[in-house]
């Protein structure tokens, strides 16, 4: 049995097949999936304008072609499991784009806590972009930028500082 089914979170080892080589994401934003179970679902595939997300059939696990992904973020807003993110090394800084469905929503320029997959605070970052689709349909998409690019594959949530 997979340990994540007990703990509820994935480790970077679980995700090794799903994360791009760092050289690929230098100033190139790409989508990453954290969808490792075979469930009947494919909006990431059908929403992708460059057909960069692949599945053999609707129950397959999605894989991203990092070379052709243009980092548009459509899959992040649409994914029902909130399991699509985008990552990039922006200059020397780390940048993660994630779905966010709580209030208050952070504002652009606001400093926020960075959380890992267990909800632990692992640093601080600045919200550099926020995309608000119709909230009754899709998820808000927030981009955070932070100094320590090493935590790029750990940051998967934010917390608005009260």
């Amino acid at each position, binding site marked *: *049995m997979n340990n*994540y*089914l*007990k*703990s*509820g*979170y*994935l480790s970077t080892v679980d995700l090794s097949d799903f994360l791009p080589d760092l050289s690929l994401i230098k100033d190139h934003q790409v989508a990453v999936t*954290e*969808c*490792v*179970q*075979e*469930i*009947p*679902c*494919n*909006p990431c595939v*059908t*929403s992708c304008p460059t057909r960069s997300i692949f599945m053999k*059939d*609707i*129950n397959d696990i999605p894989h991203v072609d990092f070379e052709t992904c243009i980092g548009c973020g459509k899959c992040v807003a*649409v*994914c*029902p*499991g*909130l*399991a699509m993110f985008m990552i990039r090394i922006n200059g020397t800084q780390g940048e993660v784009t994630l779905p966010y*469905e*709580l*209030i208050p*929503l952070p504002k652009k320029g606001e400093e926020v806590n960075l*959380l*890992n*997959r*267990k*909800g*632990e605070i692992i640093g601080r970052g600045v919200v550099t972009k926020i995309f608000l689709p119709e*909230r*009754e*349909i*899709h*998820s*808000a998409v927030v981009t955070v930028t932070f100094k320590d690019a090493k935590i790029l594959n750990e940051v*998967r*949530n934010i917390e608005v500082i009260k």
Partner: protein
Amino acid sequence: MREIQAHPILNFKKGKEVSFFFNGSKIIAYDGENIAMALYRLGIDVFSESPKLHRPRGMFCAIGKCSSCMMRVNGIPNVRTCVLPVKENMIVETQSYYGKLPDKVENFKKSIEISKDVAIVGAGPAGATASITLKEYGINPIIIEQNSLLGGQLVKQTHKFFGSEREKAGIRGIKIAEELIQQIEEMNIDALVNSTAFGFYPEENILGVFRDNQFIKISAKYYLIATGASEKMIPFPGNDLPGVFGAGAAQTIMNVFGIKPGNKILMIGAGNVGLIVSYQLLQAGVEVKAVVEAMDEIGGYFVHASKLRRFGVPILTKTTIKEAVGYPRVEKAITVNLDDSFNEIPGTEKEWDVDTICLSTGLIPSVNLLAQAGCDLKYSPHLGGYVPIRNKYLMTTKENIYVAGDVDGIEEASIAMLEGRIAALSILEKMGFNTQNKITDILNELKSLRNGPFSKKVVQGIKEVEYE
């Protein structure tokens, strides 16, 4: 008092003020609010007392399935107040014992009869989709719905749906409900809301419906029973206390009525319902202390568990509820760890400071009408309990009675919508329309959705209850 002030997904619109009397005191509610919700919003938890031990009782299912919220309304006992909207000057009284009979009977209206080609019980995703399909072929069905809103449980599903574009994946359930309701309205489909289908009389082929103190006899050539399911109760001391809710009830209270079910919650069960509702509780501003699960792994989709863990909510496997403590409502919960044989491990008890306990320990198909109608049922643990024996066209062992949605086995709303279409198209085929190609098409779509590992048990269950 318990109103949700702001929500990331929903806008709550309050109707105009309506006043009614609760045990003689004047209560201000809002138009469109159900009795139990208005009271709960104001902090009133106890609606009745148990017959023998006079224990306090409050709401449990919040969708008119159980009997926990029954009160005396305008002199009539045993009214399910969670689904009955408030009316000006209504007289509501808490109920003790089995309820007192009406003081007078002149409130009752003369019964009426309605004759239709097709009657559909339940306006959830299955029933609503079926009604639209029938109307597309020029058949006028009648829908009987216990709630004031059409759309069934879709109206509280603020999460985005899984599946493919054809099943509207990536769109929130509330939006799908909105679209279905709009279609039903635009197509002028007859719908009796706040109407309870309480009995099926097979000798006369009649469905008995109770609505606004009136008995309505419905006589139809075909019936589609799409009554959905109800939440399972599990045994533990204190499970009847107000503040112990079905997880779906918490979802109704917060997402339909804009009321916080509690401030600090413990969720029992890490299946999809438990995980999804826990996340939605966070969205409503409620603190979720933990999700506990008796099995040794998370049962729902892993992605739902990750959403919660990212906000720091613990998910504790091999753990269950031992007791709910408090008076007259939950004040704390005690959990205990389980060994590999599901025995409690002494000394592992843990006390939780919570005011609400949500049970998401499974759903049971609501097959009562089918049993009364004489349809053969079979027990299938993979499908949630007793389910109707049927063929792939969703015809039961009675030729004029069809089923769709959770009533024929617990799955989810996308499947219910597809089944609603199949049942409607099968009825149409029998009425002389040529729908076979469309049916085959949807059967294939169903097959592909049920092809993954999560559907293995369901597929096995269906095999056991399907006839050729």
